[in-house]
């Protein structure tokens, strides 16, 4: 009798499972075997990952040809959860690593996802130089206003007067205005959104991914454990509410006017979208063709020419 019940229940469950398969809609984009993730409840990074995955979906990218490079920190862990070729590098160095990856393999779409401390403080020099060269990279900077992985220290984007563990009496340093930094360094696409603006953020990431050149998206995101709690900004839900109330969408705003102040208005939107600026590789190819003509050994698949890399030719043939 018990066995019969069990069987009946069992088959019903199996049937239900085929109808309602408990699959996460983002499963094709995520390394499910790595979950649960390390991020705190209320953290904004997961939202950015979802928006990024959604942008990949909308753009119908060949996922085998997209690579993600991250640095160190909470946002640096993004590479570990995304089911693409993904590289978790050293602190501050994802952009030069990504530069090498992109220049050696033109077929790859290379995306850098990391945090404000990683990209703008320790990696600040790499950031401005990659923008200057207009290397074909999309850089998504999750700005949570502090070094979260190490316990909430002041960062290059922390607003003046905000508390952190290393500014216990309030931050007195001027923060970087990230969009202004990116734009003045030469980025061809600069936008800022928050983790509340998921639809606009997704579209913006998609725009950035499809635009050639150095494209930059800053995402303001709550760090409930360290930044918003210490600064008495409320729970993550309340912080998202403040994004709704305090954000002003101003497309085309002069990036130099979008500084963030503590408790002040946050200007968001697409600030820069330059057309026609040649990328690093376009400039390189053009200059070499001018100088060397037919002698320029630009290979369509020049990395296959590398001695010892012959095996790749077969792989590529299989792939295309």
């Amino acid at each position, binding site marked *: 009798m018990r066995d019969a019940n069990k069987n009946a229940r069992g088959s019903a469950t199996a049937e239900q499972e085929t109808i309602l398969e408990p699959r996460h809609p983002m499963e094709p984009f995520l*390394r499910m*075997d*790595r979950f649960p993730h390390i991020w705190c409840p209320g953290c904004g990074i997961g939202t950015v990952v979802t928006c990024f995955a959604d942008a990949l979906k909308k753009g119908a990218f060949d*996922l*085998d*040809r997209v*690579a993600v*490079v991250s640095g160190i920190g909470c946002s640096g862990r993004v*590479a*570990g959860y995304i*089911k*693409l*070729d*993904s*590289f*978790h*590098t*050293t602190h*501050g*160095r994802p*952009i*030069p*690593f*990504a*530069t*090498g*990856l*992109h*220049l*050696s*393999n033109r*077929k*790859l779409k290379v995306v850098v996802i990391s945090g404000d401390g990683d990209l703008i403080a320790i990696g600040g*020099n*790499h950031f401005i*130089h990659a923008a200057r060269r207009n290397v074909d990279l999309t850089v998504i900077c999750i700005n949570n206003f502090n070094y979260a992985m190490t316990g909430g220290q002041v960062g290059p984007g922390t607003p003046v007067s905000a508390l952190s563990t290393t500014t216990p009496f309030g931050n007195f340093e001027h923060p970087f205005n990230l969009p202004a930094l990116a734009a003045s360094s030469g980025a061809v696409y600069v936008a800022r959104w928050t983790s509340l603006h998921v639809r606009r953020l997704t579209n913006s990431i998609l725009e950035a991914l499809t635009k050639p050149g150095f494209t930059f998206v800053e995402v303001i995101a709550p760090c409930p454990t360290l930044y918003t709690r210490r600064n008495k900004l409320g729970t993550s839900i309340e912080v998202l509410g403040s994004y709704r109330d305090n954000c002003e969408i101003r497309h085309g705003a002069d990036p130099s006017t979008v500084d963030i102040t503590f408790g002040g208005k946050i200007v968001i939107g697409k600030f820069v979208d330059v057309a026609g600026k040649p990328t690093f590789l376009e400039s*390189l190819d053009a200059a*070499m063709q001018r*100088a*060397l003509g037919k*002698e*320029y*050994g*630009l*290979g369509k698949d*020049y*990395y296959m*020419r*590398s*001695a*010892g*890399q*012959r*095996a*790749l030719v077969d*792989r590529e043939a299989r*792939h295309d």
Partner: protein
Amino acid sequence: MKASPEGVLTGAHYLDGDHACAEGALAAGCRFFAGYPITPSTEIAERIARRFPKVGGVFIQMEDEMASMAAILGAAWGGVKAMTCTSGPGFSLMMENIGLGIMMEVPCVVANVQRGGPSTGLPTMVGQQDMMQARWGSHGDYGIIALSPNSPQECFNRTIQAFNLSEKYRVPVLVMMDECVGHMTEKVVIPEPDEIEVVPRRLSPLPPGEYLPYAANGDKVPDMVTAGEGYRIHTTGLTHDERGYPVMTAEAQDKLVRRLRAKIDDNAGKIHDYECKRLDEADVVVVSYGITSRVARAAIDAALDDGLRVGEIRLITVWPFPSGLIRDLAARTKAFVVPEINLGQIVLEVERAAAGGARTISVTHAGGWVHDPQTIYHAIREGLRGNGAPRKPARKPRKEKQP
């Protein structure tokens, strides 16, 4: 396999060591170079910048050495053979990402044309003071390979060897040149492409799904794949398992770090390369490397003319250090004489390996010039008096003052 003909400048040339190193890289199949100008290594980058466009390579001058090192790691994952070059101060900056290369097991080559240090030191003058930094400069435990060429011809040959070793053992390989070798100009013969042996990347035969990025083979080295091939790999500088996923446990750390060390140590017999002369009947053995091996030549010749029984070892692979060779010799020789343009670095390895079996005499030089061969000659003479006594202490122990 044999070198690809494009990029191989077959013929006899008159080249300095830096240019010869660049030609070695081209012959080895290097097609990505990221670097930052620094004396006395800049000529490597300059020649690559001029030569690469015609052979389908990409040269990029990065904003600093940290970026250069990071970029060549990225490029290696992109499927090319990649290198950078630098000198002391830049070598220090590269240590961070050399560590990442070791942890991610990325084949790549770093040429360090050594100058006098510490700090800015003697930018245009010779030193051999980065030999221990080559071994231990990045944090953590690991195994590393470092080669030491002693002529422009060797700069060509050893750069190819460096690429081959890096592909075979999936580790950054350091070409420890010095300012003299880098800037001296000599005849360099570049062979026909089919006379140049190059090691291709050890690409996994397994399809995506079955491939594990850090499942090592019998030689303790895992096979590699290239980004964009559909493997969707993850790789990290964190301690990781065979999937490449971070695992924060002492067990995972033990397994990984011991393998990173063992893949070099256990294969050391295959990696070791050195030149030996007259070791069988030697009373004194001169152990040297790089430019100092050529300066020592004059001293050894003078000693041989005097009828002294002097053997010589020129280290080509400095790391891993050939401890066994020294240990065996220590039993039947009186002394090792170790001249080097530093205040005693590789001599410590010789002394460790000799383990008191023979005397070890350090012939030091603070940098800026090569040794006067006389100093090496006198050390050989001193060694003959040795007779197995342990190395003389640098100074006598201070006498305790009576209260």
